[in-house]
């Protein structure tokens, strides 16, 4: 089969961020088409396309939409998730910058499909400039009647508002996002109830990632059948792969799902500076499990293929580390991040992340005892699955995989160390769910 090379989300069209240019290239035709369909038909189209969420969890988008109640007296809400704070991830920002109207059009169609009249787009606080860019696009779309009352003369009305975060990774977690939007601290909520029943202000709410939403106009205009054939059938479509670290041309590359990791690194991102060997790769943002450099041959970038090698597609943010990298300093930095970002509500995550950081610091300082290796794994294993939200898992997974794949790197730092008698394993780590 011919390789699919078309760019659907970030096509190379100059000034596409301008509404007139966007319209000239067929923009907002999908909205017109969707408004002529029944809302259920739009949802059905998305369901059949097999689109899966691009926010990290890969949840089938159409299915998620069907969880929203059809008959309800309550207001319904859509939250577009532009918190984009997972280290190694920088794709949604590209959509705001280069193709904001595709996102806006997608958001309105999404709202129409679920009978939603208010859309909030939550964007991380650091993206002040990108919020300005998107706001400009939103204003233009309002002025042209694509958002607001009786959109394009139909009976459908919806508003779209931007809401700026203020620096907190956890607010990308969907329930923390809702708390943050409601004006509280961004603490994740205990689930169930799920957002489709009990979301913003107790009303039915759907949360979707920016890139997920940007795929909707494409599916509506080209049809589910066409879309479902792009890339890997179980997670079809193009993906905005972000590649960073030790490559010659880091950046965002839009390619079909299932693209070979080696193609991404060598063909697209120009290989490793100095032609060095690759020591390790993180495939999908800092929370995904690592891959050893010798094992990247043949690995494809999609949910199923990465699961087969023990990791996940996550946010498709690939981080490459060359042979000279001090891997322990990297895993320590990542662990420090999760410790810093733990919302602190519950013990296993808050304390566990702190312990992992402390133990890794001992390795880094050459002061770790040989038993610290098992202790580290123990702590990670006790965090995984024992937390309210997935941040705990996100912290545990990279550490678990590191110990499995790079035990030698840690052992190297044990040697010659003085045993650390003062530190006793924390007793309540083995305590069950918070």
């Amino acid at each position: 089969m011919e390789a699919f090379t078309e760019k659907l989300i970030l096509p190379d069209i100059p000034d596409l961020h301008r509404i007139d240019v966007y319209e000239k290239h067929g923009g907002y035709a999908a909205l017109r088409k969707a408004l002529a369909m029944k809302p259920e038909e739009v949802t059905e189209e998305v369901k059949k396309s097999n689109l899966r969420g691009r926010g990290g969890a890969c949840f089938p988008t159409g299915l998620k939409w069907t969880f929203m109640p059809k008959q309800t007296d309550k207001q319904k809400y859509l939250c577009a998730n532009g918190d984009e704070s997972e280290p190694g991830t920088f794709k949604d920002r590209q959509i705001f910058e280069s193709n904001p109207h595709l996102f806006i059009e997608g958001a309105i169609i999404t709202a129409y499909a679920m009978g939603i009249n208010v859309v909030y787009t939550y964007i991380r606080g650091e993206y002040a400039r990108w919020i300005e860019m998107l706001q400009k696009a939103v204003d233009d779309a309002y002025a042209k009647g694509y958002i607001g009352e009786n959109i394009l003369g139909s009976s459908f009305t919806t508003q779209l508002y931007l809401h700026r975060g203020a620096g907190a990774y956890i607010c990308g977690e969907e329930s923390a996002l809702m708390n943050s939007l409601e004006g509280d601290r961004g603490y994740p909520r205990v689930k169930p109830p799920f957002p489709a029943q009990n979301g913003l202000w107790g009303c039915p709410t759907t949360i979707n990632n920016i890139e997920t939403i940007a795929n909707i106009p494409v599916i509506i205009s080209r049809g589910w059948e066409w879309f479902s054939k792009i890339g890997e059938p179980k997670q079809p479509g193009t993906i905005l792969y972000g590649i960073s670290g030790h490559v010659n041309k880091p950046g965002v590359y839009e390619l079909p799902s299932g693209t070979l990791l080696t193609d991404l690194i060598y063909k697209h991102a120009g290989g490793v500076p100095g032609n060095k060997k690759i020591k390790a790769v993180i495939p999908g943002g800092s929370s995904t499990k690592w891959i050893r450099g010798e094992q990247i041959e043949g690995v494809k970038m999609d949910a199923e293929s990465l699961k087969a090698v023990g990791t996940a597609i996550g946010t498709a943010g690939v981080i490459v580390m060359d042979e000279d990298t001090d891997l322990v300093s990297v895993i320590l930095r990542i662990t420090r991040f999760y410790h810093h970002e733990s919302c602190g509500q519950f013990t296993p995550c808050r304390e566990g992340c702190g312990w992992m950081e402390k133990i890794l610091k001992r390795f880094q300082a050459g002061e770790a005892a040989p038993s610290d290796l098992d202790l580290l794994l123990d702590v990670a294993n006790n965090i995984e699955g024992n937390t309210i939200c997935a941040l705990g898992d996100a912290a545990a997974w990279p550490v678990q995989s590191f110990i499995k794949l790079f035990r030698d790197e840690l052992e190297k730092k044990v040697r010659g160390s003085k045993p650390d008698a003062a530190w006793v394993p924390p007793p309540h780590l083995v305590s069950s769910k918070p």
Partner: protein
Amino acid sequence: MFSKENLDTLDGLRVRYPVGKPLVLPALWLAQRQFGWISPEVMKYVAGLLDLPVSHVYGVVTFYTMFNTKPVGKYHLQVCTNVSCLLRGGDRLLDHACGRLNIGKGETTTDNRFTITEVECLGSCGTAPAVQVNDDYHENLSVERLDALLNDLR
């Protein structure tokens, strides 16, 4: 305390939400822009404006990293040292900035021009290492380019 413009902006946002509480982040952003930081007095003021307990506003302000709870310099250098920046020298940029300005992380120069903060991933991993100065991103930095930037900001 708020300028007329800020009061109008805040009022204009009220229609967006069914209740008043979600205005707390927008209000704090306006406050930080007007006053440079969020002092205890500002927290009280915002609480009064939105009819919220001061303790609530305090809880929100301290939860998020971007609200300055003490004054910052004219230029707030927010240096990312997370994984992708680390791999491309973000930690060296931080050390260099601290050395050159002769301050530590979280500190402000005596002339109140610069504050340095170490921050988490800015979403610039593909253009790493990155430093955010106030609202603006500076990317693909090297020690030399950071020096040039600091010269410009003087």
